[in-house]
């Protein structure tokens, strides 16, 4: 009994193994699986076109290459690395974060931060109590609060002026 069980499990295991192999040979990776990776890559010949939508023949072959590599069991990262190694960093939608490329990522936030600091400082300078320019007509328009009563009053004034 025990023996039969062992034999049976061995047979089953073998069976599973072989069907597994057969399955892997059968199924070529689907278009969606290929596109999921191609989407993240840029066509090495036509600049600024993602590989999944590029209509050229070259790009079609590159998509087939991705399919083959997927079928070989390569991971997404391995495929991307392969493309970078062969066609340079420009195939990536974003430059890798190293060396000179750090400038790409650091400069905008730094500049925006500087802008925010300048703005904040100007606010403090502006709001510091100073004697207001006398007779400035704009001051009168300024102190309007947005409560409903004044709102209506203002609308009525506008109306009166119109007639």
């Amino acid at each position, binding site marked *: 009994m025990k023996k039969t069980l062992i034999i049976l499990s061995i047979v089953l295991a073998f069976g599973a193994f072989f069907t597994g192999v057969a399955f892997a040979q059968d199924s070529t990776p*689907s*278009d*969606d699986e290929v*596109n999921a990776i191609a989407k993240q890559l*840029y066509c090495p010949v036509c*600049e*600024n*076109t*993602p590989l999944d*939508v590029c*209509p050229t023949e070259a790009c079609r072959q590159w998509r087939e290459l991705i399919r083959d590599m997927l079928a070989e069991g390569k991971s997404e990262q391995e495929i991307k690395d392969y493309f970078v190694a062969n066609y*340079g*960093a*420009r*195939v*990536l*939608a*974003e*430059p890798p974060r190293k*060396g*000179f*490329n750090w*400038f*790409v990522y650091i*400069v*905008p*936030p730094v*500049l*925006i931060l500087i*802008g925010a600091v300048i*703005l904040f400082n*100007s*606010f403090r300078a*502006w*709001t510091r109590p*100073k004697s*207001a*320019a006398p007779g400035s007509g*704009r*001051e009168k*328009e*300024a*102190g*309007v*609060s*947005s*409560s*409903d009563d004044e*709102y*209506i009053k*203002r*609308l*009525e*004034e*506008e*109306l*009166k*002026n*119109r*007639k």
Partner: protein
Amino acid sequence: MLPEFGYGVLLVSFIVTVYSGFAAVFGVTRKSATLVESARRAQLLTFPLLTAASGSLIYLLVNNHYEVSFVYEVTSRSMPTYLKVTAWWGGQAGSLLFWSWLLALFTSAVTLRKWDRDLEFLPWVIVVSSVTLTFFVGMVAFYENPFTRFWDIGGQVAPSLFAPSANAVLFTPEDGRGLNPLLRHPGMVIHPPMLYLGFVSFVIPYAFAMAALITGRTDDRWIRITRRWTLWAWLFLSLGLVLGGRWAYDVLGWGGYWGWDPVEIAAFMPWLTGTAFLHSVMIQEKRGLLKHWNMVLIILTYALVIFGTFLTRSGVLSSVHAFANSPIGPLFMSFVSLTLIVSVRLLIQRWPELRSETEMKSMLSREAFFLFNNLLFMGILIVCFWGVISPLASELFTGTKITVGPPYYERATGPLFAGLLFLMAIAPLSAWGHSTIQTLGRALWKSALAASLLTLGLVITYTTNPYALTGFFLIAFVLFATLHEFWRGANARMRSQNENFFAALGRLMGRNRRRYGGYIIHISMALMAIGILGIEIFQIETQGTVAAGESLNLGDYRVEYRELASWDDFGAGVNYTRSVVDIYENGVYIGKLHPRIDYYYESQQNMTIPGQHATFKDDLYILLVDWQPVSHEGATFKIFVNPLVNWLWIGCLVFLFGLIFAAWPDKDPADEPVRRKVGVAGRQASAAD
């Protein structure tokens, strides 16, 4: 004969523009009104001259004069006449001529206005516009000549304007190469003129700004004069961007409308500064603040307009848009740098005179929110500028080419756009000068509550994606707050004037068109944001090869492939491959679509035309990717479901309405009879709140 004529008037218009600039300068320095008037007339003359040059080119285009190299490059016998006309801006030389023609149109129009009160601006406006025009006409006349012809010199064909040697004879190719098929789309026919109109009309406010700096008349007169110009410029630029997006969606066949391509960004950057400018001039008008900043913004906008033209026209970026390559880059760069240096120099000179008249009172005032808005727009500009520049810098300094693509822009601009939405909700309800948390809270809590409830509803029914929920909350907040503002105003009038709701609303909006037009634009932005969020976050796609009768499933849709036919249209030089698919939604048949591929023999180029089924809920977007030509048994389709994307286009229509509502000219107060003067005062009073 006609090419010589066209080139001749081109040269004359160049001379006239140069003259107009010099005459204006000497007119001012020698205090000679006659010279200034002469400059003005010269300026006016450039328009008919350039019209004659453009007319010659159009005649050559329409009548198959393939001995002219530009005509050869952009047209072919098979093209319909309207496309031959629009091929005017389908190539480098022609589009620069088109730019110049539009600029001449605008500068002539502006010199025709009534100058009585602003006479000191006139010569300097002429100088600035004629310098710009000189640059562009010079470029056309001396570097990118659309009238260059082919000459046969003993069997060798070479392009040249005039016969290069005595034995040279004109060479006329049998047929032209034809316009790039991607450009033969209605969207693409209108898109460049709109964009150029936007670009060109921003030259006018810039010219006035410079005139204000030079003459020292630094009050807000220049802003009041150019207010409508700026609005129209902004309208055209926005329309250009939108049409470009629609074109990409319909023609480029990648299921999207905006790819953060450098050339798209080139047109987007002046839009950003222009939008910031539109907002911040209001602070100067109402409160006398930010005079320096408005100058900076208009200078930047002008520089970005030229820079944008440079990016698209010089071929410095190779991208999907880079149909044109030519050695005019350095010229453009020098011109941009030169105008920037001069403008900044003038600004620094007048710096002390541009001091604010009042002070900022509170971080919660309307003007403070406008400043935050400007910070965000500048932030987006920095991200965009840097994204376009850094691949060039990388190539220049390290020799490696890099791509800065959508992930970079989306990550960096996402929070900034969210911030803009938030400001759009709260700023219109804050008061000039001073607001407190209490007054703001009172004005906003209902809208905030409604938006929160709606978001909660979305969590339960639609999505739990935090980015989407944040976005939808902000959009709902903008919509509720803005609509509430309309309702509040109309209601107040109803009570005080005993009008019915619609009459009250109509009068309210008519009273202050700029403000309510602006609110309509805010609403349109929120609607567009719905579409953008939908397609950015919820887009799904699939691709597969199916035999006739088989289906592909995506979301609620099933796409069943019926048949495919392929035929030639020899007259047009195109091969059409058109598939027929049945579409089902949740098992219910809803119609047929015909995704197709047009193959252009002349240019050996494919055009993928999607089949689209558009609803308020989503867009089913089917591309024919491939087919088996012999058996016709199988075809490969790529299918997208783009949720909510049509709100983007609906938003665009609302936007258009809002802008025209705000920008529609009414009579200049000075022209109106005295009887109406009170009405004008009323209008200005209402503009002041």
